[in-house]
C-alpha cells in the first residue's frame, strides 16, 4: 500500500466535560499530514492543545477527555477505529512516545533497564538479553555515560538530561515508525538542552522515523522540524514548512510568539546616588545542608564564599544551572537557611542568620517571590486574603484601609478588581504570578528576591511579567535580586549579573560586561547554548562539545568546579591549582570579575 502521507490527521476533535457534565471541545478542526521520515512540530502555548493532539496519535486521551471526531491514520492503522487491545499492540511498538518530564515519566522504583526494554518484551519483539544489548547500543549512540552499567541505576540517580535521553532509548528500542516527542527538553537547562537536542537529532530523526515534535520554543523547533503547525486555543493558527513559518510568518499570533521569544532590553532606571552603605551586602557566605563540619563547611555544601552587594533600586541577576545554588542565595537572605559562615547585611546592619531574632521591620524590608505561583500561593485563600495579610501583618492595616490598599495593589499589577474574591485555583498562570508579586509589594519592601518568576510561564505571559517588573522598579525604586536560568532574560533586565556554578561565583560584573566576549568559560557555554531561531544553528554551535582531554585531577578542595566540563581547561594547571579571582578587561571598559586561570587573551570569543 503506497500512500502519499505516512501520518494523516483529519478534522480531529477532542472534547472534555465540565463540572455539569456538558461536553466542550478542547481541540477542533485539526488537519495535518506528513510524509514518512518528516518531522512535524506542534507549537503553541500551554492550553493550546498541542499535547492533546500528540496523544491522540497514540489513541490516548487523558482522563475526562474523549476523541470525539475526525480520523487519525498512521501507516495502515486507523487509530480512532482500534479497540483497547489493538491500541496497546501499537503503542510502544509502532508508535513511541517521549514524555515531557522524563524525571517523572520513569517509574521511580524500577531500574532504567527494566523500563527501557519493557516495550520490546511486552510486544514479544525480542528476548530480554537481546533487548538489553540493543538498549546498551542505544545508550552509547545517545552519548550516555557508562552505557554498560547505566541501565542498572534507578531514575533518581540520574540527571534530567540523561533521563531524557534514556527515554529516547526506551522509545527507540522497538524501532518505531512514528515517534511523538512531547516537549522533551522543556524541563532542562539550556546547557543540557543542547546536548539532548543533538542526541535526538542524531539518533531519533536520522533513523528515518517519522516524528511529531511538540514544543513551545520556536528556536528549538527551528533545529528539528520540517513542518510547523502553530496552535492557539485548540485550533490551528498557521501551518506550513518550517522555513516559511519561522522567517515569513503569516499570522499575527505567530509573530507575537516570535517577539516574545527574545526579551527586549529594559533600560536600567536611574540609580539613586546615596553615599551610605549598599542596601544589601553578602560577605563570605557559605551555606548548605546537614551538620557543619570541622572545616566550617556543612555536610552538603551548596554555596561557597559568596560576596555580593545590591544597591538601592538596583537589580542583580543571578544565573546558573539548576542545582547551582541560585535559589539558596535567596533563602539565605530571607533567613530560611541560616548560613554556615559569613554575614548578610541589610543597610549595613547584620541580619540575624535565621528567621529567629529578625524584627518585623527587617522581615518587611526583604520580600521573597517564589518561582512557582501555583505552590507559592495558598490555594485555600482568595486573592484579597493573600494581599491583605502582609498589610495587616506589617502595617496593621485593617478593614477599609486594607481594602483600599488591596485595590491599589491590584491596579499596580494590572489585575481586574473583580478577581479579589476569587480563589487562587480560579486564576490563570500569569494572574497568579502577578498576585505572587503583589503580595511582596504589599509589604512595601526595599528588596524583592525574585526566584525564577517567569520560568513556569509561557513566553508571552512571561514577557508581560518582565515588563510589569521593569515598570514597578521604575515607579517604586525597589531593589531586585532576579534569579534565573535564562541568560537572555537576565541580560535584558539586570544592572549587574552574577554567574553561579556549583555554588561558586564564577563571574560577576555589570550588565554591559556580558554583552560581548571574553567571558568566563562557563558564561560562554551558557550564552552559546541558547538556541537561535534559524535552522542549522545546532550543527554550527560549538557549545557543549567535548572538552579537551586532561590528566587526573589533584586533591585540592578549591579546584575549579567547572573543570570537568570546561572547554578551555588546561592540563597541569586547572586540574592542579585552584583558580584565582581576577578582573577581566573588556573592550568598552566595563569589566567583570571571574574565577579562572585564564586571562582576557586566552579566552576565545564565542
Amino acid at each position, binding site marked *: 500500500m503506497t500512500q502519499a502521507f505516512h501520518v494523516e490527521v483529519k478534522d480531529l476533535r477532542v472534547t472534555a466535560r465540565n463540572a455539569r457534565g456538558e461536553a466542550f471541545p478542547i481541540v477542533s478542526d485539526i488537519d495535518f499530514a506528513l510524509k514518512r521520515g518528516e518531522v512535524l512540530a506542534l507549537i503553541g502555548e500551554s492550553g493550546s492543545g498541542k499535547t492533546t493532539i500528540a496523544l491522540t496519535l*497514540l489513541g490516548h486521551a487523558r482522563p475526562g477527555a474523549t476523541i470525539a471526531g475526525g480520523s487519525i491514520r498512521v501507516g495502515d492503522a486507523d487509530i480512532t477505529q482500534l479497540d483497547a487491545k489493538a491500541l496497546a499492540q501499537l503503542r*510502544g511498538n509502532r508508535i513511541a512516545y517521549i*514524555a515531557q518530564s522524563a524525571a517523572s515519566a520513569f*517509574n521511580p*522504583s524500577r531500574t532504567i533497564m527494566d523500563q527501557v526494554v519493557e516495550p520490546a518484551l*511486552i510486544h514479544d519483539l525480542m528476548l530480554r538479553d537481546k533487548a538489553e544489548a540493543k538498549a546498551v547500543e542505544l545508550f552509547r549512540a545517545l552519548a550516555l555515560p557508562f552505557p554498560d552499567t547505566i541501565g542498572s*541505576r534507578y531514575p533518581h540517580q540520574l540527571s534530567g538530561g540523561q533521563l531524557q535521553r534514556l527515554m529516547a532509548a526506551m522509545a527507540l528500542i522497538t524501532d518505531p515508525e512514528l515517534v511523538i516527542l512531547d516537549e522533551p527538553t522543556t524541563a532542562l537547562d539550556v546547557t543540557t538542552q543542547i546536548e539532548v537536542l543533538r542526541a535526538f537529532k542524531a539518533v531519533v530523526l536520522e533513523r528515518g522515523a517519522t516524528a511529531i515534535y511538540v514544543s513551545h520554543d520556536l528556536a528549538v523547533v527551528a533545529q528539528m522540524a520540517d513542518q510547523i503547525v502553530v496552535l492557539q486555543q485548540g485550533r490551528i493558527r498557521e501551518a506550513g514548512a518550517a522555513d516559511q513559518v519561522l522567517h515569513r510568518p503569516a499570522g499575527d499570533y505567530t509573530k507575537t510568539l516570535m517577539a516574545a521569544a527574545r526579551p527586549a532590553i529594559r533600560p536600567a532606571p536611574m540609580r539613586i546616588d546615596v553615599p551610605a552603605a549598599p542596601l544589601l551586602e553578602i560577605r563570605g557566605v557559605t551555606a548548605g545542608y546537614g551538620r557543619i563540619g570541622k572545616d566550617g563547611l556543612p555536610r552538603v555544601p551548596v554555596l561557597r564564599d559568596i560576596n555580593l552587594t545590591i544597591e538601592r533600586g538596583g537589580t542583580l541577576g543571578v544565573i546558573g544551572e539548576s542545582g547551582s545554588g541560585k535559589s539558596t542565595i535567596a533563602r539565605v537572605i530571607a533567613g530560611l537557611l541560616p548560613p554556615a559562615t559569613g554575614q548578610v547585611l541589610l543597610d549595613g546592619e547584620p541580619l540575624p542568620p535565621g528567621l529567629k531574632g529578625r524584627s518585623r521591620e527587617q522581615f518587611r524590608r526583604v520580600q521573597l517571590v517564589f518561582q512557582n505561583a501555583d505552590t507559592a500561593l495558598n490555594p485555600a485563600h482568595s486573592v484579597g486574603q493573600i494581599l491583605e495579610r502582609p498589610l495587616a501583618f506589617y502595617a496593621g492595616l485593617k478593614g477599609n484601609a486594607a481594602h483600599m490598599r488591596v485595590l491599589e495593589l491590584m491596579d499596580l499589577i494590572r489585575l481586574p478588581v473583580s478577581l479579589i474574591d476569587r480563589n487562587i485555583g480560579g486564576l490563570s498562570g500569569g494572574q497568579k504570578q502577578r498576585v505572587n508579586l503583589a503580595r511582596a509589594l504589599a509589604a512595601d519592601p526595599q528588596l524583592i528576591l525574585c526566584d525564577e518568576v517567569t520560568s513556569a510561564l509561557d513566553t508571552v505571559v512571561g514577557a508581560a511579567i518582565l515588563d510589569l517588573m521593569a515598570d514597578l522598579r521604575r515607579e517604586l525604586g525597589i531593589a531586585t535580586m532576579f534569579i534565573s536560568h535564562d541568560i537572555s532574560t537576565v541580560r535584558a533586565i539586570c544592572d549587574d549579573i552574577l554567574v553561579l556554578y556549583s555554588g561558586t561565583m564564577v563571574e560577576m560584573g555589570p550588565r554591559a560586561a556580558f554583552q560581548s566576549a571574553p567571558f568566563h568559560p562557563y558564561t560562554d557555554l551558557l550564552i552559546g547554548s541558547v538556541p537561535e531561531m534559524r535552522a542549522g544553528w545546532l550543527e554550527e554551535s560549538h557549545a557543549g562539545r567535548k572538552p579537551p582531554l586532561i590528566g587526573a585531577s589533584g586533591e585540592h578542595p578549591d579546584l575549579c568546579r567547572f573543570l570537568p566540563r570546561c572547554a578551555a581547561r588546561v592540563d597541569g594547571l586547572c586540574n592542579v591549582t585552584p583558580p584565582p579571582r581576577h578582573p577581566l578587561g573588556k573592550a568598552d571598559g566595563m569589566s567583570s570579575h571571574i574565577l579562572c586561570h585564564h586571562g582576557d587573551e586566552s579566552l576565545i570569543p564565542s
Partner: protein
Amino acid sequence: MAGASTSSGAKAAFVLIGKRLASSLLTLLLVSVTIFVIAQLLPGDAAQEALGQSATVEQVAALRHEMGLDRPAPVRYISWLGGMVSGDPGQSLVANMPVSEVISSRLPNSLLLAALTALVAVPVALAIGIGSAMNRGGRIDRALNITTLSMVAVPEFLVATIAVLIFSVKLRWLPSIALVSDEMSWGDYLRGAAMPILCLSIVVIAQMARMTRAAVIDQMDRPYVEMAVLKGVAPVQVVLKHIMPNAIAPIVNAMALSLSYLLGGAVIVETIFNYPGLASLMVNAVTSRDMPLLQACAMIFCAAYLILMLIADVTAILANPRLRAQ
C-alpha cells in the same frame, strides 16, 4: 551496582531498626507507666478480688502481704520494671504461676488467629482495593465501596452472632465456639477458628481495602503510569508492575495498622467464640486486678504494634530505591 544498593538498603534498614528499638523502649516504658498508673485508680486490688466479699480485713491484709501489694506503688513498679529488664515478667497474682507461663499458653493462639486472619484478609483487601481503583468511579468501584462501608458499619458482635446462627446452629457446618487445645489436628483447629477468622477479616478487610484503593489511586495520575499505558502495557500489568512497587509502602503501613488491631481488638470475637486469646486474658487481668499479667499483656500488644510499624517502615525503605540508597 544492584548489590551496592541492596547493601546500603540493608544498612539503612539497620540504622532505622536501631533508632526504632530505642524509641520503642521509650514507648514501652510509657505504656507500662500509664497502665500502672491507671490500674492504681481501679477500685480494689488483686487480694480483694481474689478473696471476694467474704474476706475479713485480716485475710485481705495477709494476702496483700503475700502478694506484695502492701508495698508502696512506686516500689512495686520499680521491682516489676527490674524484673522485666532481667527478662522476668513476674508471677501472676491470680493464677499462681509465672506470668510467662500464662502468656505462653495464650500468645500462640492469638498469633495464630491473627496470622490466619491476615492470610485471608490481606489478599482479599488487596483484590478489592486494586479492583475498585482500576474501575475508579465505575460501577464496580461504587459497588465495592458500598460493600466495604457496610462491612465497616455492622457491629462485630452482630456479624459474629449471625455467622454462628447460620453456620453452626442452622447448617451445623462449623462449631459455634473455637475449642482450641494442644492435641487437636490442624483440620479441627481450622474448623474451629474459621468463624473467628471470618469475623475478624470482615472487620479489617474493609479498612485495608479502602486504604489500598486510596494508595493505588494516588499513583494512577502520575506521569509514569501514563507512560506505561503509552508503552502498550496491559492495565493489570500497569497496576502490578508499575503502580504496586510505588504504592506498597502506604499499603503496608495501612495493613500494619489494621493488623495491630487483630491481637488486642479481638476481645469481642474471642468472647463470642470463646477463643482463648490474649485480649480476653487481658480483660481477665483487669477484672482480677492481676497487675503483672496486665502489664505483660500491654507490653505484648505494644510490642506487636511497634514491630508491625517497623515492618511497615522497613518495607517502605526497601520498596523505595531513593530511601534504600540513603
